[in-house]
């Protein structure tokens, strides 16, 4: 129940309070005690004086009474003549006058001549009696407290003078409780008289007392009191505290065993102060209770808000900001709570900002890939159990690096914003637009299958037909769009995104630069990866082969060239189309294995043919990757030298597109190849966008018209015009022109008429394995150039 803070506070306060109270209490106690003891001491001294005076006065009175009798001649006469009757009557009279209980006349021989007594006066011990008379003789009087038959008497012995002593009168007054009580009346409250007798060295007997019961006093205590009468001794007698003072009883005896002590009850003295003590204790109790109560309240007012704050802090720790600490105190804790709340709001704001930033693109404010994945995951959850569909479109900006390098970062950033805005405007409210990376945007189309997605992609494409104007620059923006649809192409968010991306890459190959995901073209597919593994193996094991397609020189009507075309017969899957695995090999970096293999295989074949006396120029296709390999010229040269094959025997075909991927690098590699004496050919001419001026820069010797223009040449006049102009262009640039894809005789004739230099196609011969080619060479009507 008690928290540590509370306990500490309570203990601290309580301890301080008790210390203060204790100091107060003991100060009051000691001052009071001191005062009381002083008071008691004063009372006792006063009482002692009163008591002694009272005794002395009565003694004095009796002595004087006796002296009056001494002057009476009648009495003297009776005494001296031993007139018993007269003496007795005189003693009787005397005793009544002074209230004596015993009166006696003693002769000079110490014999009791006459007596009036309530008891036995002869019980007085002889030696004490004689001693008293002797004292009376010398002093004129003798006084003592005597115990006679167990009773105490105050005795006075006075001589009868005529004028010298002729006899002694002894007077005894009983000292009993009543007479002591009578004296007590004139003493202060709390003072009592006790007559004691020291019986021997060990015991003291209380003979008479005004106390309720006799006290038991020790000899040691008594001797202490007597030793220093001025000091007040406090003793516990009969379980009560008394201050005790001895009284000097008037006694003529040197060693009177009967003594008196005055006791002052400290309990009585303390009694008026007891309410004060109780009041102080009550104060302590009430004080402690209210202090504990107060401490608890104070502690709670601190610890409860602290608990609330702690809980709130724990909530914040786990990222929950809903709870606002509600502490209405206006003190420092309240301020702390207010600041705490402000802090929470601050943290919340910043966290929201951070989360927003972590989920959004900085430049465009669009959701980023992370957010999009989450969005798609949510969507998937929603769609999982229904047959609803959705599609993910990836829009990639082409040649963004060029734009950025040319126009600068700021402008390119604004361009991206414009693109984002454009996409955003196209998307309806239910479509999410995100930016995945610098050049990649993504649109999630709800309730759209791949067909609808394609439709939408056309809208996008259409909107990008107009150039964008940014910072007064007019920028043509080329985009690629890849589409992956749920559930058609993938079942999970990341794979959907991945496949849309792959589709966008593949889209490059399509004329409209838009592609649905196609697993067959997906070199990143797990299947494809294993296929690439197989491909390397197949290269080593000879399952990859070159087929050679002859090219016919129309001027000579002879077979002068062959183009080496790779064929892969997978041991399990059988024939795999070159387009499929070459693209894959390019994408996965396996292409250089193929290049290495292809160059060596082709050059080796050249050597074989050369040895067989067959003169054929060998054409090899280089990929875009090869054009970025600066070591390629040296590599080819060393291979040619290795097989002792002339440089002119080799023709290297490169596509326009391959060159355009990194034109500068490609150009430098091409120039190097050219300088090594290697022949270069532009492949697939007409499909790219290379300008004529650019074409002019290229160190090529041959131009190969793309087969798409040739395949329908016999039927399509437009194609014929294109082919004609291509041939004219080539010839004008000093290039040989080759047409491939000849399917029929009519096309061949057209090309022959147009002055095409070389032709190849299925109509002439399909690509053949080397054995079949050799046979074809031997049997073909075209034949070889005779050396």
């Amino acid at each position, binding site marked *: 129940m008690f928290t540590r803070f509370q306990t500490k506070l309570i203990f601290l306060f309580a301890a301080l309070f008790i210390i203060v109270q204790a100091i107060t209490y003991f100060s009051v106690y000691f001052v009071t005690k001191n005062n009381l003891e002083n008071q008691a001491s004063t009372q006792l001294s006063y009482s002692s004086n009163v008591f002694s005076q009272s005794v002395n006065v009565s003694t004095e009175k009796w002595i004087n009474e006796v002296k009056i009798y001494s002057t009476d001649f009648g009495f003297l006469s009776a005494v001296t003549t031993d007139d018993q009757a007269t003496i007795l009557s005189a003693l009787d009279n005397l005793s009544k006058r002074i209230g004596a209980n015993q009166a006696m006349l003693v002769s000079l021989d110490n014999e009791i001549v006459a007596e009036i007594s309530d008891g036995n006066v002869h019980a007085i011990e002889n030696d004490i009696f004689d001693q008293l008379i002797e004292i009376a003789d*010398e002093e*004129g009087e003798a006084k003592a407290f005597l115990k006679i038959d167990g009773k105490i008497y105050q005795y006075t012995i006075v001589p009868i*003078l*005529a*004028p010298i002593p002729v006899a002694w009168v002894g007077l005894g007054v009983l000292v009993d409780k009543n007479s002591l009580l009578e004296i007590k009346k004139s003493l202060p409250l709390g003072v009592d008289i006790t007559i004691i007798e020291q019986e021997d060295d060990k015991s003291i007997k209380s003979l008479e007392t005004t106390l309720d019961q006799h006290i038991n006093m020790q000899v040691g205590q008594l001797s202490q009191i007597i030793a220093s009468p001025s000091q007040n001794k406090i003793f516990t007698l009969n379980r009560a505290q008394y201050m005790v003072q001895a009284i000097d009883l008037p006694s003529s005896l040197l060693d009177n065993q009967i003594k008196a002590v005055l006791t002052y009850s400290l309990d009585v003295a303390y009694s008026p102060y007891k309410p004060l003590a109780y009041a102080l204790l009550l104060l302590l109790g009430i004080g402690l209770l209210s202090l504990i109560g107060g401490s608890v309240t104070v502690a709670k007012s601190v610890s409860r808000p602290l608990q609330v704050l702690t809980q709130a802090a724990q909530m914040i720790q786990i990222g929950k900001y809903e709870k606002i600490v509600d502490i209405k105190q206006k003190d420092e804790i309240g301020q702390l709570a207010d600041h705490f709340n402000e802090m929470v709001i601050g943290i919340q704001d910043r966290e929201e900002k951070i989360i927003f930033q972590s989920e959004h693109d900085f430049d465009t404010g669009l959701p980023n890939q992370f957010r999009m994945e989450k969005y798609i995951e949510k969507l998937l959850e929603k769609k999982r159990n229904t047959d609803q569909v959705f599609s993910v479109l990836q829009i990639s900006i082409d040649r963004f690096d060029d734009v950025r390098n040319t126009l600068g970062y700021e402008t390119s950033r604004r361009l991206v914003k414009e693109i984002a805005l454009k996409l955003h405007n196209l998307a309806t409210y239910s479509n999410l637009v995100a930016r995945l990376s610098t050049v990649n945007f993504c649109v999630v189309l709800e309730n759209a299958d791949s067909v609808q997605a394609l439709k939408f992609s056309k809208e996008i494409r259409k909107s990008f037909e107009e150039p964008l104007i940014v910072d007064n620059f007019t920028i043509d923006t080329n985009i690629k769009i890849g589409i992956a649809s749920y559930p058609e192409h993938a079942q999970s968010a990341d794979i959907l995104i991945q496949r849309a991306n792959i589709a966008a890459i593949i889209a490059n190959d399509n004329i409209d630069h838009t592609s649905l995901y196609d697993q067959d073209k997906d070199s990143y597919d797990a299947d494809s990866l294993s296929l690439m593994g197989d491909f390397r193996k197949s290269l080593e094991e000879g399952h990859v082969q070159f087929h050679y397609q002859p090219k016919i020189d129309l001027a000579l009507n002879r077979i002068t060239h062959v183009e080496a075309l790779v064929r892969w017969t997978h041991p399990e899957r059988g024939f795999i189309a070159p387009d499929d695995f070459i693209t894959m090999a390019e994408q996965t970096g396996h292409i250089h294995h193929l290049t290495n293999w292809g160059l060596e295989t082709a050059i080796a074949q050249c050597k074989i043919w050369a040895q067989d006396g067959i003169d054929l120029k060998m054409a090899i296709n280089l990929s875009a990757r090869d054009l970025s390999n600066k070591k390629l010229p040296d590599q080819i040269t060393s291979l040619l030298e290795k097989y002792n094959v002339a440089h002119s025997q080799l023709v290297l075909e490169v596509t326009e597109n391959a060159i355009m991927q990194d034109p500068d690098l490609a150009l430098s590699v091409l120039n190097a190849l050219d300088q090594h004496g290697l022949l270069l050919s532009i492949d697939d001419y007409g499909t790219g966008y290379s300008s004529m001026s650019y074409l002019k820069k290229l160190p090529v010797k041959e131009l190969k018209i793309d087969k798409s223009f040739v395949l329908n040449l016999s039927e399509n006049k437009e194609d014929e015009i294109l082919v004609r102009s291509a041939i004219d262009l080539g010839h004008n640039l000093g290039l040989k022109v080759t047409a491939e894809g000849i399917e029929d005789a009519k096309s061949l004739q057209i090309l022959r008429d147009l002055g095409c230099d070389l032709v190849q196609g299925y109509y002439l011969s399909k690509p053949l394995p080397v054995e079949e080619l050799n046979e074809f060479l031997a049997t073909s009507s075209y034949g070889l150039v005779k050396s």
Partner: protein
Amino acid sequence: MQYFKSLKFYAYIILFLAPYSILYSGSMVGTVVDQNGNLLENAVITIIGENSTILDNETVMPPPIMNQKNIQFSPFVLPVAAGTTVYFPNKDDVRHHVYSFSKVKRFELELYGGDEEKSVLFDKEGVVALGCNIHDQMLAYIYIARSNKFATTDKDGKIAIGNLDAGKYSAIVWHPRLKGKEDDFSQEISISQNGATNITFEIPLKREKNRKKKSNY
């Protein structure tokens, strides 16, 4: 002063007679001291013969007088032989009421101022304490000796008793404050024909009474 003058007077008489006595008889010179060695005045020494027949009729003694003058008795101690009449002349102007309750002799004398005729006969041996019923401070003793050979000590505690036949005697001493009985302090003495016998008594005394309280009565 009268008292002392009269004392001197008697002393001169004694001294005058002394050479005669010494010629024909022995004498005794005594000193009395208390237990502390102080010389005691007013001590009475009595010489008692073996056969108690000491008679010296030749010695003529003037009549003994107990004066009352200046509210005092004088002398303080008056030794007399038994059968002596003592006169009590009142030389004061005030009345005195002289009394004795001593067993040896009880009497009362009412004496008017200037009254000089009253006398009392002391016929028994012993001590008579005299008081005045009017004046408590007045106190004197009449010592009735057992023989006629006695004397009181002077201020120097000395006495001289002459005219004694040679022989053996016993000497007793008395003093108003003597503690004990006279006979307790008796001494045997030998008197020779020529010369004086020295004797010294050392006697215990009671303490002097505190008499101040008597003055009120």
